[in-house]
């Protein structure tokens, strides 16, 4: 259907995006790779020299690196699990007829519009603080000792906060997908005697497959680089209990001014993200075709 003219105009339209993105990606990427092979500390100007693989060696053998990998994986997997399952449940619920539907939907979706720093602060000071927080006060009201969330369960607390922020996103996408499902199909299945579980498993879930992959893909991209929540609540601590890869690189390059080390970390982060990306791309690639 595409004519020669429309094809050339299409090429014209797409080229600014491609060129900008290519430049944006290649220039800093090459610089990162280059710096990662240098001894380069901003506190000692004029002393850059070739370092070989030293930066990589020290970055990987640093004990906080293994911790950071584990924390990153835990955070991503935990939040994905909670938001996908929870979002599916919320979407199924919100799809049902009810009074005040608009208001309830807005209330469920509201956390999505709160900035990460703000929501982290709110949870930290008003809910999870052992003395002033609401959770603490409720628990002491019943006569138990309050829980110091960020002291005892730092990573789980952050996972919880991030989940709260991303649940609305999953709900929103899944709800939209659910609404595009043909009601006649469901009705026909019901008349044929299919139970709710069967209808869910054989009709709704396959219909939602694409939406679920979109949710997982987009969330993974953002969750791999969660930063503000950690900076605001725990500063990566106690110890390295909540340091994820992003935070570790921030610490080594901008707090310790070690550009070489930070770059090596960046390259490693890119490689790891690509490993995740390959799997996701396979999945999404199939779903984008349809």
């Amino acid at each position: 259907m595409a004519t020669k003219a429309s094809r050339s105009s299409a090429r014209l339209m797409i080229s600014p995006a491609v060129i900008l993105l290519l430049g944006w990606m290649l220039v800093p990427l090459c610089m990162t790779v280059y710096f990662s092979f240098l001894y380069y500390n901003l506190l000692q100007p004029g002393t850059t020299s070739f370092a070989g693989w030293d930066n990589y060696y020290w970055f990987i053998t640093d004990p906080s690196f293994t911790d950071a990998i584990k924390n990153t994986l835990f955070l991503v997997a935990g939040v994905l699990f909670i938001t996908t399952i929870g979002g599916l449940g919320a979407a199924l619920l919100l799809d049902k007829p009810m009074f005040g539907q608009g208001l309830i939907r807005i209330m469920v979706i509201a956390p999505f519009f709160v900035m990460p720093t703000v929501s982290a602060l709110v949870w930290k000071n008003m809910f999870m603080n052992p003395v002033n927080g609401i959770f603490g006060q409720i628990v002491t009201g019943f006569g138990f000792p309050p829980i110091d969330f960020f002291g005892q369960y730092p990573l789980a607390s952050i996972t919880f906060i991030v989940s709260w922020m991303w649940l609305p996103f999953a709900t929103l996408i899944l709800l939209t997908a659910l609404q595009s499902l043909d009601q006649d199909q469901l009705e026909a299945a019901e008349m044929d005697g299919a139970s709710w579980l069967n209808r869910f498993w054989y009709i709704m879930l396959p219909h939602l497959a694409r939406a679920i992959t979109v949710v997982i893909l987009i969330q993974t991209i953002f969750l791999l680089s969660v930063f503000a929540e950690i900076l605001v609540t725990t500063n990566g601590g106690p110890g390295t209990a909540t340091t994820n890869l992003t935070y570790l690189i921030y610490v080594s390059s901008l707090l310790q001014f070690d550009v070489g080390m930070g770059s090596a970390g960046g390259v490693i982060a890119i490689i790891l993200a690509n490993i995740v990306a390959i799997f996701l791309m396979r999945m999404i690639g199939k779903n984008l075709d349809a």
Partner: protein
Amino acid sequence: MARSISKKSKIINTLVAGFIGFLMFFPILWIVVLSFKTEENAIRAPLEILFSSGWTMESFQTVQARSDYLKHFSNSVIISLGSTVLALIVAVPAAWSMAFVPSRHTKNVLMWMLSTKMLPPVGVLVPIYLLFRDFDLLDTRFGLTIVLMLINFVCLKIKKPPLGGLGSRKSVAYEIKISLV
């Protein structure tokens, strides 16, 4: 055609969904409530805060006086609007060409663009910091706007195959961007 639904099940749905909605919304509600309290009242027990302490606008005056709130707010607005507009200018033509004149390479290009989105920002943090330092863009609104534009415009390109629904997908991407900023 919608089927008739008994009033009872509708009420139950409303109660369950309303309860969940309230739980999700509660932290936001709570900020609003606390913002009308004095600092000393804000850390009392929840029920005391609600029913036995006065309401005040004091905090709003303090925040403006102490930190020039409006200036920071206008920074946010300029950066988010600016980067969104710039991103749209670049992304809409590209999305058009992908959706209406797809070629053999469209899928690959799309995949590549998505994959750049997976590049962890920290991976290129250092070079951008140094580039900005050398070009005097550090701490300027313009610099931030450019960065956000380049980071974000890929969001728009989550293409939906047939014609319908392109708009809705775009608006979702748009919302993502707003929340990012």
